[in-house]
């Protein structure tokens, strides 16, 4: 474990951005079809990809 104290900004930076992507993904498919649907899939796939990447990585 690293002996570094992280600020609230450090701690919540990633979750905040992933939350923004999720919100965009949830909203965009409601707003339209086709392009909006694709935007929704991409935006929601980002948090899932980060999850897969982090969960598969040993520290």
């Amino acid at each position: 474990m690293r002996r570094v104290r992280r600020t609230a900004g450090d701690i919540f930076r990633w979750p905040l951005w992933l939350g923004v992507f999720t919100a965009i993904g949830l909203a965009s498919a409601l707003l339209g079809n086709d392009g909006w649907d694709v935007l929704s899939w991409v935006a929601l796939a980002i948090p899932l990809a980060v999850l897969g990447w982090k969960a598969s990585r040993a520290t």
Partner: protein
Amino acid sequence: MTARSVKWWSLVHKWTSLVCTLFLLMLCITGLPLIFHDEIDDFFQSEVSARELPADTPQAPLSKLIDTAKARYPARFAQVLNWDQDRANVVNVFLSEVPAPPPGKRLLKLSFDSRTADLLEEDAQEGGVMRTIRVIHRDMLMGLPGELFLGAMGLLFVIALVSGVVLYAPFMRRLEFGAVRRGGAPRIKWLDLHNLIGAVALVWLLAVGLTGIINTISLPLFNAWRAQVLPELIAPHLGKPPLARFADIDGVVATARQALGGNVPASVVLPTQARFGTPRHFIVWTKGATPITSRLFTPAMLDAETGQLVAARGLPWYLRVLQVSRPLHFGDYGGLPLKIIWALLDLATIIVIASGLYLWLGKRKSRQLGMQVTDRPTTVATSGVTS
């Protein structure tokens, strides 16, 4: 954050989670097949489609479909007619055995080709594994009380999520985002995974949780609206004998179309004793054309005798919120890829819940053994006091 407040939030997180855990697990597990219910239904029982006919083939009068349905089942009561959501050129007529079927009662569904007026199929809408799973997911086979109970569990779940966010900071004080410590005690690994998945899926969890809660109060909300709207509509007709003649349904639908220009009709509630309609009106439910407005239904009420428009108002805000919250709960508004994303996030939720339960069980066990497991941040780390 002080050690005291960390302790308080820990208690909130622990107890709100513990109380709702098993119900949330049930909801996640039953919810998984429900995400794909359209695909599953299609796979097991393919519905009859309308024939291929030239695109400019005119539609048959709706009255012909209703007359055919009534002739086939003279002892039954035609209640509702709808344009099939999934099948082009198919109109369904729903019949009940009694004049005022109780809420939730399955109606006999007759599907017609809307151009030839040919009967395509009959569906008693009884049984079926998917229907049972849906009812368990909605109310655990206990009707409204079960539904409201699950709503309360959803509320606890949302509180658990919020308290989890608060606790996330002290836990992550010395860790990089997404760090999963392996090689140590399994609890540490599962704690890190619990925090990671929770942090990644938080907004989705909140969206599905909150919209689920809203769905559990849909029946009371619709009842409140009915109690507000219907007495006024019915008042002029009180004490009058039942109608012998009704207005022509095709004229009624045309009038409703005209009144709500941008919308298309989705269903028609025929004059009925049932609670979803009135004996003196046709209710034409219309919807918009975009993904979001197609979820927002606007009713037009027309006089059952004269066919004249009585009222065509948008629904109050709380029913609009309810209608928009449905797709956000079901994930059925962005094609199959969105459903797959929903399923993956649902599986992630199961891991969060199961790991939380595991961490709690493990802590009890280690306490019994008199062991101290260092999965908690130290007081210094959590207190915010520089060490």
